């Protein structure tokens, strides 16, 4: 069974559209994340949720809005897509949202292409 699953894997859409990426984890983790990986492979955290509550919101345009309906899900909605939003978006989860420090489990990524 896939631990962290994201859908869709590929997403091609036109500028100005609104799209969502879904993420689910079946590991029972408390904390979930969204990361963006640009064309140079640099990974940057966008959001972090702990038990459905937002704990990290990096400098991300307001067009990006995460939603966590429950502890196992963290979806990412993007409004008014721009060319610069093209990237691979990774969902991840980890057991603790505190200072313990543990490994993160990543999904396979969603390659978003805005044309």
């Amino acid at each position, binding site marked *: 069974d896939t631990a962290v699953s994201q859908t869709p894997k590929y997403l091609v859409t036109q500028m100005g559209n609104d799209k969502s990426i879904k993420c689910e984890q079946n590991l029972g983790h408390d*904390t979930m994340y969204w990361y963006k990986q640009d064309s140079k*492979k640099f990974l940057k955290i966008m959001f*972090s949720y702990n038990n459905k509550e937002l704990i990290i919101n990096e400098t991300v345009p307001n067009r990006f809005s995460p939603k966590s309906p429950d502890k196992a899900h963290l979806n990412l909605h993007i409004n008014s897509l721009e060319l610069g939003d093209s990237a691979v978006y990774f969902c991840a989860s980890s057991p603790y949202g505190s*200072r*313990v420090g543990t*490994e*993160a489990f*990543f999904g396979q*990524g969603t390659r978003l292409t805005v044309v």
Partner: protein
Amino acid sequence: SQQGEEDPQALSIQEGENATMNCSYKTSINNLQWYRQNSGRGLVHLILIRSNEREKHSGRLRVTLDTSKKSSSLLITASRAADTASYFCATDELGAGSYQLTFGKGTKLSVIP
């Protein structure tokens, strides 16, 4: 902000050789982790070393941590073609207020059969 920086950016070796990748970071940390990313895939955790540890082994992997120099190295011994991937270090920053991993830009390793 970018925390870890891997060096070299790309590394090409023959199968059977050892591969060494380095990571430098800027702030005090709780722990440092290494991840592998195969082409077109997600990241997979390899090893975690805590700030009070100096060396850790896992199979063919050896990680060192020097907190005085704010640097870490990942050694892969007896490399295999299947080790071809990008390798990232990630730091859990001390006193950041919340748990998050900050990744470097990665080292792209190519192991030639």
